[in-house]
């Protein structure tokens, strides 16, 4: 054999050996890390999470619906959503409560009131928010809170595969159903809704995104041709609704009039002012297709800008939409979770970061998920940004796992067989092979990515105590103990609600802002806050819903690292009013009312 051929043979062997060696090194390092650092997570990463739902009085278990028997062979795959969590201080006692949904036809939803001592009590029955699910009106998929009538108490929209329901909060003591007066549609198979004041008239408007088409009653199917027409290019999903708040509890549907006309399969939406125009733009993460970005043109119109901005080009399976100023540059990135299954479908998550040259007319995003290390998250669902260790940079908590049944048998082969088929095949549920107790990306390890502030995230879930393997759907962050630590609530499909209490290194400082609108909507949703300290800034916006079927606490939480002071805080209220606060006190919650 010639020397040249020997050389090429050696290169060939090296090429084959490199990935094996790389994987071994990575696995070895990870094992060492777990062995060495699990006990020292607090000192190493600045926080440690401990699951304590049962000890806190939370014993909620999600139930899935039983849909039309024509779907029996793939029932677990179809009925794989509906576990949702949203945080609210419904009684205005200054302590965050939370609402969780179930999706069994007669299952009860729960509203956990914070008892101020680390425990919670379900008061849904007492206040009238438990009995929501029924075969006639459909079952819950999620809930979002916002004070639509500006009376000071957060009201709730419960969206369903069925009739969306609006409940008015009567002084934190009871909820009254006001759906009919609000003129909400009779049936929407919705998987996302958010409150936002798109036209800055001081009243919260509502976006509602359909998944299955609204003429599909999943309990009484006329046809089995209800599935997406393509795995990544489907446009036969549910329509989108934009309800303009007219006041007096009435809403007008204006989506088409304002330029939102889509039938993609929406799973998540988030509103934020990506271009610094003062008006919230709307981002929608769609399953079976590309994401959509609607740019808000002064509250008068929305312009579809998915392709021109770069987010609407490569189709994936968008499941969550979360916004965060990842690099402390005063610009929002958008995290969209997708599917990654070894060897079968590696879509990878997207972390869309805006390019520096953004302007009111033009914004472009680049997907940096790979470069920043948040790309592979399994069959990912909900995710939220939040500074879990108060080091001054936003971290990312992501849940995952689709259908966990028999751990030893996978449905992926049959799933991929049909998913790659032509429209005529994939769109008919009758063509989908039966699940027969097999798992589809089940029992997955969650992801907790901590942000080093220099463009890299590090996955530390196992190291900081997140070890559950439930089918996670919805995740929300809130400081339930008012101590400056963001706790985590997770709603699992056909599984328990988990509460991860966060213990944070006390040397890291924090500050929280509870904003109350006056000229703006009372919930202050859309208020934009920039905190300046140590030559850097972090920007956050009060949100009316983010992640997957979730809502974080509305109060804004900023971790600050080991600083001794903040230079200033700039608030831009939705009304346009600007406010600056100089050197606010650290390690405390500030309640700030919009200036007159």
């Amino acid at each position, binding site marked *: 054999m*010639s020397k*040249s*051929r020997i*050389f*090429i*043979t050696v*290169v*060939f062997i090296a*090429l*084959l050996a*490199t*990935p*094996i060696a790389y*994987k071994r090194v990575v696995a070895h390092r990870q094992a060492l890390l777990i062995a060495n650092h699990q006990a020292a997570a607090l000192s190493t990463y600045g926080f440690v999470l401990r699951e304590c739902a049962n000890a806190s009085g939370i014993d909620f278990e999600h139930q899935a619906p039983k849909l039309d028997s024509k779907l029996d062979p793939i029932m677990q795959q179809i009925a794989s959503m509906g576990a949702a969590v949203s945080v609210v201080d419904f009684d205005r006692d200054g302590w965050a409560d939370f609402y969780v949904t179930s999706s069994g036809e007669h299952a009860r939803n729960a509203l956990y009131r914070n008892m101020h001592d680390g425990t919670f009590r379900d008061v849904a029955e007492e206040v009238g928010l438990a009995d929501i699910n029924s075969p006639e009106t459909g079952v819950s998929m999620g809930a979002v809170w916002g004070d639509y009538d500006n009376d000071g108490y957060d009201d709730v929209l419960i969206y369903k595969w069925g009739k969306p329901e609006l409940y008015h909060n009567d002084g934190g003591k009871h909820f009254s159903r006001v759906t009919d007066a609000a003129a909400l549609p009779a049936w929407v198979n919705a998987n996302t809704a958010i409150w936002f004041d798109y036209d800055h008239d001081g009243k919260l408007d509502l976006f509602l995104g359909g998944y299955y088409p609204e003429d599909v009653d999943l309990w009484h199917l006329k046809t089995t041709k209800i599935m997406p*027409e*393509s*795995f*990544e*290019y*489907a*446009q*036969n999903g549910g329509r989108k609704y934009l309800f303009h708040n007219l006041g007096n509890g009435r809403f007008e549907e204006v989506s088409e009039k304002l330029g939102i006309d889509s039938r993609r399969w929406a799973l998540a939406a988030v509103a934020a002012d990506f271009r610094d125009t003062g008006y919230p733009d709307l981002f929608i993460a769609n399953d079976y297709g*590309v994401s959509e970005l609607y740019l808000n043109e002064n509250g008068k119109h929305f312009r579809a800008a998915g392709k021109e901005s770069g987010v609407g*080009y*490569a*189709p994936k399976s968008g499941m969550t939409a979360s916004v965060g100023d990842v690099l402390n540059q005063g610009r929002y990135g958008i995290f969209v979770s997708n599917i*990654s*299954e*070894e*060897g*079968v*479908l*590696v*879509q*990878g998550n997207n972390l869309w970061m805006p390019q520096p040259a953004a302007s009111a007319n033009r914004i472009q995003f680049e997907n940096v*998920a*790979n470069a920043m290390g948040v*790309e*592979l998250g399994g069959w990912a669902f909900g995710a939220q940004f939040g500074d879990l260790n108060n080091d001054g940079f936003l971290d990312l908590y992501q849940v995952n796992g689709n259908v966990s049944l028999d751990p030893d048998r*996978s449905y*992926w*082969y*049959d799933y*991929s*067989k*049909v*998913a*790659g*088929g*032509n*429209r*005529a*095949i*994939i769109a*008919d549920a*009758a*063509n*989908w*092979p*039966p699940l027969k107790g097999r798992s589809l990306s089940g029992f997955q390890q969650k992801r907790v990515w901590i942000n080093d502030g220099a463009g890299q995230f590090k996955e530390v879930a196992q190291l900081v105590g997140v070890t559950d393997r439930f089918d996670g759907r919805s995740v929300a962050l809130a400081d339930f103990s008012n101590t400056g630590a963001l706790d985590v609530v997770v709603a699992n499909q056909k599984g328990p609600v988990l509460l991860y209490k966060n213990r944070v290194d006390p040397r890291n400082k924090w500050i929280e802002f509870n904003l109350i609108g006056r000229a703006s909507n009372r919930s202050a949703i859309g208020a934009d806050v920039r905190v300046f300290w140590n030559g850097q800034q972090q920007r956050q916006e009060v949100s009316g819903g983010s992640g997957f079927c979730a809502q974080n606490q509305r109060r804004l939480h900023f971790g600050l690292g080991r600083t001794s002071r903040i230079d200033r805080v700039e608030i831009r209220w939705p009304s346009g009013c600007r406010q600056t606060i100089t050197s606010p006190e650290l390690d405390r919650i500030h309640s700030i009312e919009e200036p007159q």
Partner: protein
Amino acid sequence: MSSPADTVAAPLKRPPLNPFARFISGDNRYLPPILITLILLVGNLSFGLLESFSRTALAIATSMVLEIAFTLLLYRKFPHLASAYITGISVGILIRSPAFWPYALCSAIAITSKYVIRWRGRHLWNPSNFAISAMLLLVPEYVATLMIQWGNTIWPMLIIWVLGAIIVYRVKRFHITATYVVCFVIFSFVRTFFTGHSFLAEVAPITGPMYQLFIFFMLTDPKTTVSPRWGQCLVAALVAVAEMILRLAENVHAPYYALSIVGPLALAVEIYVKGKRKTSLQSLRPASA
């Protein structure tokens, strides 16, 4: 994949062709690369089928650079790059990964394998088939293969079927594709008795773009198929049989593995038989002399 035009024998004397006829002639080694590029461009501009142009460009560049380097190193001549281009572009289309490095690594493995895994002067595996199979076995957490449709209408599929059929017909390998497709459809029907699934569910994969590239550009690779026409049809049928067995074992990557098992075996048998014949002929000659 290699260019199907690689094996086209030197043409017999025939009247000169007009430029278009020359372009679509089987002698045009640029025809397959041009058509596969067209498919890629149409697919990506219409449906964004690629992870990104840059990843595909990386796969192509890696493939071509290594082809040049190895040919210069071994044969001291500059290679015709059509084959390497097709290998690169095929990797760029068929591999799905959000990262860049799998595209380079896969192309590198593909080209290198051509020069290393050889027997009696021929490489046994279709380079891109070997490399994709290797990637799926070695780094499944970073790599998948194209499994979804290009768009949700029938048109992209029809365009690719027509373009593909033209190419393989022009390079006289349509019988391989046809045999495989017929076998796949028959075996899809057979599988329904084992799985209990509908015929449409079983036949669904072949309607996807991955199969379209597989049957037109990978299965027909002249460098790694046997010589006689009947043998090519037999091997295509055997690939379909192997695939059916793998599918019954619920293997997601059945077509790649089936080809990577059957293809080299068939080729090895042919090389062995040819060698035997040659040896017998040589041993007969002195005797008859």
